[in-house]
């Protein structure tokens, strides 16, 4: 077939540039400038897909992004994309598209049996049928999803790259039709920063391909070129405004390489996601024609009238040689005349009894037969319209009677009026008002949201004539620039003929020979979700009268097209049933996105290694060289363990754990949070923040501290050192660093602003190597000028000096219970310090160890990890740590909560050790201690395991747990029931498994 419906001339396509493409495997040719839809139509293809629920044959309805039917699967493999609207896909050479929602083929679809069974598939069918029993839903769902699927997601990683960016402007104009262009052109005559976005590849909006007047053409070309050449203007074609959020924050997707075809964008991003902050927004989004709701109005070939115009004007395609135009308003007469002028045999069917004589006589002059006061009562041709039957309407237009006529046609161009595209105004929080003159909702500026300054201009404001669009747009552009403090000098607007035809007479549901819902004919209003007028009647009968109920019960307007063509018809039909006015039924709120968008675009460049930052310490390279396996701790990559050849994790951790207690181990502790605290009230401040005493801490001495929140629950812990009377160095957990700094600042700034205390994060200022083990002293002493003897450098103190020639602060503190030093040097020397210690350590059997060994070793000593052994619901008393809670301080954060009834009650979870009866059994962390073992949950839980390891130093498994009333249960045997059903007995013990007297740390 060689583009049988292509006109010889006209349109914005390039007939010298043929493009090949396939649809359902069949090859076709189109031209540069086509969309997939226009190219298919040029080739006479009317059947494009099967509908969602009834699997009815469907074709194109529209020519723009409102298209509900023509959803196709674009491309294959990694590039495949489901549910693309054929009307929005620009044709490129080699394009591959397939139809959706059909099996085994589009022509013969098994699911079409649903259509025959449709009387058993009414609205709410799924809700009613698959409700009971609830346990079966999982089974039903699989089949329902299989039957209902629209397209297939790719299974490979996305080969494209995407870019997202922020943008700021004074005036953002949405839509580059006459109103938007006039607005942008006017605003751009000032110094305002202007952005103009339009979803089409070329500006012009509804006028694209039309010739209005020479003056208009000249103005248009000049405006477009001036906007392109103005440095203050960002003009983005192929860019869809997807969302309008508060404080004039709007998002848009720019399609950069989609129109070139997959893989042809070189290294350019496929799409760009714009996050725009605009001082003023001008919405010039145009309007959407709505279909008439008549019997079997979903047959392929039934289209919107303006779509027929667009295919003729913009793409040089005459959708059919015989066209019936069906309308309730004047605008479709332009379509009839246009189609006729381009060679179609046209019949006009108008539901109105009297029509502007100018229009009817123009039709007669063109040889178009006009039937006024008539309606289409049926459409013949399952896979493509072959004819329609029309009948006269009764006096009240509620029924049909009299002579029926059969009209042969391939296309039914229909118009039920125009709906202003108020999506963006609605998304901005504005409310709509019903305009009886146009039978549509328009923005109610008295109900706009003040934090989102915007104005609607042109057709989206209910002003349909080009002249009015230009005028409103230009005024809006001047006003918006002025609101930003800029003076515009807009040029004169071109004269254009009056083209905003109206004369609409409401006809929400076209009668046929049977009452709606009876007979086999279906009156569709929502094509994408297959919802009919009969479904609305059913909803009304069952009491779903409000728009929100109607929508959810029938699913009208809930498909990916968000009911762009269907919402108003649904409301009006419901209003008619209820005998109410349309505004009483209400209007749905439009929500983002305006059209579907890719996740790739939203993510932009923040994918892969930019998805979440990987934070590295200065020694990271050394760990990589040493073959470390890394663990994510917060955003940090920390060495987890350092396997030697042939070792698995268990073997490596056992080896490292033994080495720390037998010789010396080295851990990269740089990630611990560090906060520099200065000011004369610093000690007093710490007294409030920590549970223990700080005023009496000597300079150069360190102390462990526990922080609580006001609930009395443990929140963070760490060692803080007094560097000078009014100067402290605090450490926090790795994950808690930012939270603790925020916490300190919050108290200082909001509660105690009179305190002279200043906190500064210095986490990355210092690289930290921790030496732990009986040989730590000899190793350190071999590389430092600090006297490391026990007398000169006691436990819990800090010394400054040089380590390996590097200026260092050395803290003698321990998280292992071993003799230990944490060596802090400026980050710039971190790697050198590490390497120097590694080198010197050879003589002292130094072993590198990671976070897993750190966990094992500290558990052997019963040292808690905040967030693992605690969970935000335990107090220091629950953790058997009342030794760290001052009894003498009058107040500290959380203190008062200790005497709350709940923190005081018997039976609270308390921190204990667990030793399994079988020393080889390592309990899973999270396992529950149960009161009584049963065959299956639920079982009464007495607590749970928080930490559990195989300890090489204890030569058996060890575990820590929170157990109700645990401190009173030491020596008891408890039962742990595992997920796999196994039951383990364990003895409740003290949580310290090694060196209970704490001799080693003080060695």
């Amino acid at each position, binding site marked *: 077939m060689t583009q049988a419906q292509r006109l010889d001339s006209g349109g914005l396509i390039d007939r010298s540039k043929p493009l090949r493409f396939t649809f359902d495997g069949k090859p076709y040719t189109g031209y540069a400038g086509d969309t997939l839809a226009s190219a298919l139509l040029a080739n006479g293809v009317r059947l494009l897909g099967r509908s969602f629920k009834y699997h009815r044959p469907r074709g194109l309805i529209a020519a723009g992004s409102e298209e509900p039917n023509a959803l196709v699967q674009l491309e294959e493999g990694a590039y495949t994309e489901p549910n693309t609207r054929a009307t929005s896909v620009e044709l490129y050479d080699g394009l591959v598209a397939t139809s959706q929602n059909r099996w085994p083929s589009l022509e013969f679809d098994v699911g079409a049996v649903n259509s025959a069974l449709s009387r058993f598939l009414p609205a709410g069918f799924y809700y009613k049928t698959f409700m009971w029993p609830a346990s079966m839903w999982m089974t039903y769902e699989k089949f329902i999803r299989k039957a209902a699927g629209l397209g297939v997601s790719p299974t490979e990683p996305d080969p494209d790259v995407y870019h997202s960016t922020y943008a700021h402007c004074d005036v953002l104009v949405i839509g580059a039709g006459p109103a938007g262009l006039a607005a942008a052109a006017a605003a751009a005559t000032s110094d305002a920063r202007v952005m103009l976005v339009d979803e089409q590849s070329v500006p012009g909006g509804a006028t694209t391909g039309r010739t209005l007047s020479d003056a208009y053409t000249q103005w248009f070309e000049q405006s477009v070129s001036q906007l392109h050449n103005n440095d203050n203007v960002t003009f983005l074609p192929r860019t869809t405004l997807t969302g309008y959020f508060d404080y004039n924050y709007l998002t848009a997707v720019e399609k950069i390489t989609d129109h070139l075809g997959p893989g042809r964008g070189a290294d350019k991003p496929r799409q760009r996601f714009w996050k725009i902050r605009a001082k003023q927004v001008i919405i010039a989004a145009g309007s959407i024609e709505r279909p008439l709701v008549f019997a079997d109005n979903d047959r392929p070939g039934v289209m919107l009238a303006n779509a027929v115009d667009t295919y003729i004007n913009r793409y040089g395609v005459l959708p059919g040689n015989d066209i019936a135009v069906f309308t309730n308003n004047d605008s479709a007469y332009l379509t009839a005349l246009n189609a006729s002028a381009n060679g179609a045999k046209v019949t006009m069917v108008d539901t109105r009894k009297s029509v502007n004589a100018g229009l009817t006589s123009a039709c007669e002059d063109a040889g178009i037969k006009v039937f006024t006061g008539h309606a289409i009562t049926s459409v013949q041709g399952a896979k493509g319209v072959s004819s329609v039957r029309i009948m006269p309407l009764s006096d009240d237009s509620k029924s049909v009677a009299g002579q029926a006529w059969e009209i042969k046609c391939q296309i039914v161009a229909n118009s039920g009026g125009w709906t202003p595209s108020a999506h963006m105004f609605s998304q901005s929080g504005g409310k709509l008002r019903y305009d009886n003159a146009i039978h549509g909702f328009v923005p109610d500026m008295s109900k706009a949201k003040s934090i989102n300054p915007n104005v609607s201009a042109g057709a989206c404001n209910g002003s349909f004539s080009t002249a009015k669009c230009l005028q409103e747009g230009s005024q809006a552009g001047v006003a918006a620039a002025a609101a930003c403090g800029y003076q515009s000098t807009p040029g004169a607007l071109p004269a254009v003929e009056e083209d905003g035809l109206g004369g609409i007479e409401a006809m929400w549901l076209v009668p046929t020979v049977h009452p709606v819902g009876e007979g086999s004919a279906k009156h569709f209003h929502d094509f994408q979700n297959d919802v009919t007028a009969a479904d609305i009647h059913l909803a009304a009968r069952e009491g779903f009268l409000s728009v929100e109920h109607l929508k959810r019960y029938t699913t009208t307007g809930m498909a990916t097209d968000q009911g762009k063509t269907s919402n108003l018809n649904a409301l009006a039909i419901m209003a008619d049933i209820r005998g109410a006015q349309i505004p009483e039924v209400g209007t749905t709120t439009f929500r983002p996105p305006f059209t579907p968008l890719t996740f790739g675009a939203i993510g932009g460049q923040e994918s892969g290694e930019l998805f979440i930052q990987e934070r590295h310490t200065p020694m990271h390279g050394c760990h990589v060289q040493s073959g470390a396996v890394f663990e994510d701790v917060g955003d940090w990559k920390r060495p987890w363990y350092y396997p030697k050849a042939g070792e698995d994790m268990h073997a490596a951790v056992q080896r490292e754990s033994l080495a720390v207690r037998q010789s010396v181990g080295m851990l990269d502790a740089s990630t611990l949070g560090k906060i520099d605290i200065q000011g004369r009230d610093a000690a007093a401040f710490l007294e409030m923040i920590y549970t223990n005493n700080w005023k009496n801490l000597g300079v150069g001495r360190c102390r462990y501290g526990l922080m609580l929140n006001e*609930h009395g629950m443990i929140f963070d812990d760490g060692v803080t050192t007094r560097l000078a009377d009014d100067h402290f160095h605090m450490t926090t957990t790795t994950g808690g660093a930012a939270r603790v700094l*925020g916490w300190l*600042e*919050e108290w200082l700034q*909001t509660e105690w602003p009179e305190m002279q205390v200043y906190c500064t994060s210095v986490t990355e200022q210092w690289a930290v190597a921790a030496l732990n083990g009986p040989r730590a002293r000899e190793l350190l002493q071999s590389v430092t000028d600090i006297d490391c003897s026990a007398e000169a450098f006691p436990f819990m103190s800090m010394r400054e000096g040089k380590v390996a020639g590097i200026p260092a602060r050395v803290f003698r503190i321990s998280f292992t219970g071993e003799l230990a030093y944490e060596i802090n040097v400026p980050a710039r020397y971190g790697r050198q310090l590490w390497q120097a210690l590694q080198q010197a350590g050879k003589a002292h059997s130094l072993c590198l160890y990671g976070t897993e060994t750190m966990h094992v070793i500290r558990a052997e000593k019963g040292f808690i990890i905040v967030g693992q052994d605690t969970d935000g619901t335990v107090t220091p008393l629950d953790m058997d740590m009342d030794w760290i809670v001052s009894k003498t301080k009058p107040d500290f954060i959380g203190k008062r909560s200790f005497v709350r009834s709940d923190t005081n009650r018997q039976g609270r979870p308390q921190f204990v050790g667990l030793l399994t009866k079988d020393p080889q059994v390592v309990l899973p962390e999270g396992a529950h201690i149960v009161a009584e073992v049963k065959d299956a949950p639920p079982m009464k839980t007495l607590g749970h395991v928080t930490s559990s390891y195989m300890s090489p130093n204890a030569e058996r498994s060890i575990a820590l747990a929170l157990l109700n009333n645990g401190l009173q249960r030491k020596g008891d045997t408890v039962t742990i029931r595992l997920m796999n059903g196994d039951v383990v007995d364990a003895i409740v013990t003290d949580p310290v498994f090694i060196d209970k007297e704490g001799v080693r740390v003080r060695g």
Partner: protein
Amino acid sequence: MFIIDCPYCGKRDQTEFSCHGEAHIARPTDTQNLTDEQWGEYVFFRSNTKGLHRERWVHTHGCRRWFNALRNTVTDEIFATYRVGEVPPGAAESQP
């Protein structure tokens, strides 16, 4: 997505800030002599206002200063931002 007028840095994107709930809840000074009910009121209870709400914000990615905002929780309109210690705008008429 709000624009928030930091009293120190000026108007900035909401993603630079964090919100920390209701403002002007002073920590009781004499904590040890409070009844459980009084202490619970301070620790657990907030007004959960529909309408004008005074709330605390911190300019996390900016100057790291805490400040207060007067926001309508229905429309998200922020009528004013003010420094800690300053009297909230319109406090005289709207103080409960």
